[in-house]
Structures are given as structure tokens and as C-alpha cells.
């Protein structure tokens, strides 16, 4: 192209007997490169050289500009480019482009002409048109998701500066959509591929809830589904639960909690001891089968704390269940001590009647031989209303036996 264009330029100059090539007279059928140069506002080009190499170099540079323009016309700043060709030694101008002043009547809001209608015959083969339509038709949700997961991977490797939270949210959204489309395997795969990138997402509880509410796993799917949340720390899961009780995602959060309680109960035990009563009540329900004798001391302290700081019957009941589960014999012995008149040692302060009633109620919910023994042991220490309560409970045992 370059050779024929060069020849054409020189023959035009020769014909005109001039050094200057006027671009105004160019026809649309002329070289696209010269049309581009004209389009950039060049009115006339003066050639003060006939050196083929120099002209070639100049044409090559301009072809590069044309391509840059074509790739991104928005960011192309013609006035900043080198349109002239200079002698590298003397700096003398060998080819000079004369550029018109910028369009003087510029008005940004009128800058957009209405687009021309497309009424000319469509010059593409029918089979190409149909093939293109088919390409659109096959863009199924699966295809779109594959495209996006590919985009995600590619962007992640090529762009380092994206805000980690924005990135995590984006990955999270794609996972949510994937789950919404019931593509569990794919969602797990995305979460696994972006394991580290997902981490900041877990602080954004709205987005976390969105993922939870996108899919309700069946029993057999839970272990696979739980992998999506592999990097979600349990304390954050609990926080999300706390702030989104009653939300669309709550049942799924509970499923994940249950799963974690089954598979890593010790982590939940630790969290349970350090949590607020509201969370303790939730966690204690899952942890019942996991209490061991070595938890006993801490459970006793937690019960003490619950009795002293909370009038929450449910919480007391749950701590007592945990205590009994951890060590039945020790639990009833220690609980019996509370009812002794001069007992202060373990509990620090004398336990009030309301607390004692809560203990009795909690114990009465799970009748057992040990429980009856406990009632018999404490009947001599209780008085008044509390004594009536103990007698009623013992009577109930007798009736059941008869």
C-alpha cells in the first residue's frame, strides 16, 4: 500500500508541478490514509524531499497514527502528534503538514448530529447474518456466566489496582447470580478460584445475605454448597446472622452454622464462650452434642454469669443442658450446691430465688433419674414458694412411676 501511495503522491505532485499536495480535492475513493490525514485537519502537505526512505518512514508513522485513531478515536489527540517529517541531523522540515485551525463554531451540546438512517441494502451474505443471530441466541445464562467468569479471571491477572472490596463484591455478585441460576457446581468453582479475592466481601453483610438468599441447598448438597463460604469466618457469619435475623438468607445461614457445628464444633465452642447472650443462645442449640468434660469449668462459669446478668430463662436452660451434657454427675452436684443455705463458694454471691427457680424449670424440662435425685437432695434446703415447686416436681415423678 505504502509503495503505491508514494508513487501516487509523487505523480500527483509532478502533474501539478508543485511541492504541495492539496487534500481538499481528495475523493472518497482515494487512499484511506490520506483521507485520515485530511480528516485530522491537514489541508496541504508540502514535500521538500523525494527521498523514498524518508517518505516511507513518514507514511509508516502516519499509518500508525491512523490505527491508533481507529482503535480509540476518543483518546486520540491529533494536535499532540508529529505530523511533519524532519531531517534527523539538521532538524530541517522535509515534509510539512499544514493543519487548519480547530473548528471555530464548536458547541458541545450541538456536537452530536442525529445519526444517519440505515436504509441502504444490507451487503452481507444471508448465511453470515444468520450465523451472527445464532451467536446471540446461544448466549444462555450458562454461556454468559462462563464469559463472565473468564472475564473475572482475566481482569484479575491483568489488573492489580482494583479496590479489593469492589473486586470481592463483583465476584460475590457473580456467585449469587450463578446460584440463582441453580448452577451450584459452577458457583463453588468460582468461589474456589477467587478464594482470596472473596475475603473482603464477608464484611459486606448485604452482599453476603444476597449470596445466602440466592440458593437454598438440599440436605445432600450442603457439604458442597458450604465450600462457597470456606473463607467466611464463623464470627462474621454469626454477626451477619445477628443483624439479619428474619431475613431471606437466615434459613441458609442457619444451615451453614449447623454444618460448621457438625464439622468444626471446637471453633464454635470458643466463639460461644466469647459471644453475647443472643448469639450464645443460637450457638448453644447446635453445640449440645459436642460438650465434653473438659468444657465443664467454663460452662459452669458461663452459667454463673447468665444467672447473674440475665433473666433469660432460655439461656439459663441452655447452659444447664450444656453443663449436664458435659458431665452429668458433676452438674447435678454443683447445681445442688446452689440451693444450700450457706453456699457462696462457686458462685461468688448468694443465688437469688429467681435464679433458683430458673434452674428448677430448666431441669424439669429433661426429666431423669439424676434429676429426681437432685430434687430429693435439695428439698431440705428450700423453703416457701420454692419448696412447693420442688414438691410438685417430685410428685410428678411419683405419678409417672405409678
Amino acid at each position, binding site marked *: 500500500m505504502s509503495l503505491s501511495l508514494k508513487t501516487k503522491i509523487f505523480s500527483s505532485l509532478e502533474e501539478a508541478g508543485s511541492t504541495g499536495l492539496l487534500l481538499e480535492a481528495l475523493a472518497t475513493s482515494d487512499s484511506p490514509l490520506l483521507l485520515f490525514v485530511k480528516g485530522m485537519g491537514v489541508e496541504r502537505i508540502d514535500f521538500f524531499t523525494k527521498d523514498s526512505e524518508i517518505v516511507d518512514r513518514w507514511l509508516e508513522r502516519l499509518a500508525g497514527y491512523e490505527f491508533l485513531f481507529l482503535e480509540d478515536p476518543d483518546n486520540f489527540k491529533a494536535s499532540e502528534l508529529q505530523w511533519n517529517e524532519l531531517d534527523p541531523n539538521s532538524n530541517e522540515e522535509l515534509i510539512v503538514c499544514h493543519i487548519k485551525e480547530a473548528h471555530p463554531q464548536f458547541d458541545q451540546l450541538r456536537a452530536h448530529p442525529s445519526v444517519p438512517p440505515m436504509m441502504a441494502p444490507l451487503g452481507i451474505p444471508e448465511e453470515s447474518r444468520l450465523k451472527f443471530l445464532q451467536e446471540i441466541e446461544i448466549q444462555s445464562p450458562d454461556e454468559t456466566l462462563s464469559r463472565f467468569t473468564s472475564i473475572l479471571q*482475566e*481482569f484479575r491477572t491483568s489488573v492489580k489496582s482494583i479496590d479489593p472490596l469492589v473486586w470481592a463484591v463483583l465476584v460475590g455478585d457473580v456467585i449469587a447470580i450463578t446460584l440463582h441460576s441453580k448452577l451450584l457446581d459452577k458457583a463453588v468453582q468460582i468461589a474456589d478460584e477467587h478464594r482470596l479475592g472473596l475475603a473482603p466481601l464477608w464484611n459486606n453483610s448485604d452482599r453476603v445475605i444476597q449470596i445466602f438468599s440466592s440458593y437454598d441447598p438440599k440436605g445432600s448438597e450442603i457439604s458442597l454448597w458450604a465450600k462457597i463460604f470456606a473463607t467466611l469466618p464463623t464470627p462474621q457469619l454469626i454477626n451477619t446472622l445477628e443483624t439479619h435475623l428474619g431475613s431471606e438468607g437466615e434459613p441458609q445461614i442457619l444451615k451453614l452454622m449447623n454444618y460448621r457445628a457438625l464439622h468444626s464444633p471446637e471453633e464454635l465452642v470458643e466463639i460461644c464462650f466469647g459471644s453475647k447472650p443472643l448469639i450464645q443462645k443460637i450457638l448453644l442449640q447446635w453445640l449440645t452434642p459436642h460438650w465434653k468434660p473438659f468444657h465443664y469449668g467454663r460452662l459452669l462459669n458461663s452459667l454463673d454469669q447468665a444467672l447473674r446478668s440475665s433473666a433469660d430463662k432460655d439461656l439459663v436452660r441452655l447452659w444447664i443442658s450444656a453443663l449436664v451434657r458435659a458431665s452429668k454427675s458433676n452438674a447435678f452436684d454443683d447445681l445442688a450446691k446452689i440451693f444450700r443455705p450457706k453456699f457462696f463458694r462457686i458462685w461468688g454471691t448468694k443465688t437469688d430465688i429467681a435464679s433458683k427457680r430458673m434452674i428448677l424449670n430448666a431441669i424439669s424440662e429433661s426429666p431423669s433419674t439424676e434429676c429426681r435425685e437432685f430434687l430429693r437432695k435439695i428439698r431440705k434446703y428450700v423453703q416457701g414458694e420454692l419448696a412447693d415447686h420442688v414438691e410438685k416436681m417430685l410428685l410428678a415423678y411419683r405419678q409417672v412411676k405409678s
Partner: protein
Amino acid sequence: MSSQIHRDILGIFDCNLSAYETEIETLKKIKKYDEYTYLHSLNVARLSVNLGKRMGLTLTMLEDLGWAALLHDIGKLHVPLEILNKAKKFSAEELAIMQSHPLEALSAFARNQPVTIERLRRLCAAFEHHQRYDLKGYPGVKRKFNLHPYSRIVAIADTFDAMTTDRIYQRRMLPDVALKIMAQGFGNIFDPTVLQAFITSLGAYPVGSLVRLSDERLAIVMKYDGNSSLDRPFISLVRDKEAGILNLMGETYKNLRIMRSEFAEDHELDVQDLMQRAAGEIN
């Protein structure tokens, strides 16, 4: 502002606007942030949808394509205005920010709720409109997938509108020149099928072009019909209204050719006015 935006959208394609509140909010933000980008988005959507119609897309596809085009530049919301409208050359840092706008579309998307598979599909063009058909361009990635068909349409409409729109620092290109230059991108920058469809359906001299004929007279391109060839549309002579509208495909005009197009304002002509008058005289 909302009703104006609603009118603008419905002027391009039909859709139930109440289903697109988030998208309309985003367009509102674009309009408020930079009127140029908003008007550009409208033009890109018009061109994309018009081409989609010509290529036989269904109404649902046109709706998706229309939104894909309207939102293709949402990432520019995150490019500072002083960079967006800078007349001088960008520094390396500014260029990087400017070229990050497809990526910033990711952020804009991530901030939108709720996310759906449809929204994801409509946003492909926002990520991909600066990636070339041969999968180069920016953001530079190693693709496993071809560009989404909507992205391929939007990329062409985007380039054509950017080339044929006046900027503070650059006079617009005439449409026929823009098309000629775009044709250099067949198969490498642009999808050849889509580009060919785009160029042929606009015609070598799009309707409204002021053209110089081989006999030196000026004319306005009035229309093409099913029998027109690419460079032989129906024209109306500027200085000879009596001649009516001439079909260059006709035997009478077989020796008359269009040489080039020219800027109407350089001749102090109002193309719209001339076209209306010419059409009126025919009627």
C-alpha cells in the same frame, strides 16, 4: 430530567421502563456528570439498535442491545471530568485512568442492585467495547471467549460516533471518511460481518451527507432504496431544486459520480432544512 431520559430511550427502542429503574438511575447519573457522554451513549444506542434491526434481531434482543449500548460508557462516571474533557495530550497516568473505564464498569456494576443474569449480559459491552475483534485492545487480557455479539455491534457504533462528533480539540470527520477509515479495521479491530453490515446499510455516503458530484455540483444525499448501490443513492441538487430528487442508479445519471463529501457549514448550508425542503417539493 427523568421524563427527558424516558423519551430519549423510547425514541430508540421499546421497553417497559419500570423494569429498568436501576439502569435509568445510572443514565441519569451519566447525564448529570457529563452531557457529552450521555449524548454519545444515546447515539451509540441509536446506531446499534438500527443496525440490530437491519440484521434481524428480535425485539428482546434489540432491548438488550439497546441497554448494552446505553450503558457502555458507565465506567466513565469514575473518570475525573478534567481527564474526560482534556483537550491536551494525556499523561501516562491520565491515559491509564481513561483506559480504565471499561474496568470501572465492573465497579459501577458491582454497586448496582439487584444483580441478575440479564444485567450481566447487558454489561458485556461495557467491559468489552474497547477490546478488538482480534482480542487485543484494552483492557489487555488473554481471552478464551470471542467478544459478545452486542459488544461487537457497540464497538463499531461507538467508534463511528466518536469519529463523526465534534470535539473541542478536533473537528468531526465526515461520515463517509469515517467509514472508509473504519474499513481498515475489517477482521482485526472490528467483526467483519458487523462492520460490513454497518457500512453497507449506511451507504458509502450516509443520508444527509453534502456531496460534491463529478460535475462539481453540490448535492444532499436524500435516501437509499433496496436497489441502490453503495455509492449511488438518491440525491437532491443544492442549487437546482427544480431537478427534484435524482436516483443515481438511473440510466440518465450513469455518468454522474459522487466524488467526496464536504462540511455543510463550510458552505453555510443547513442540511436538515435542505432535506426538508427537497422532500416537501416532491410531496
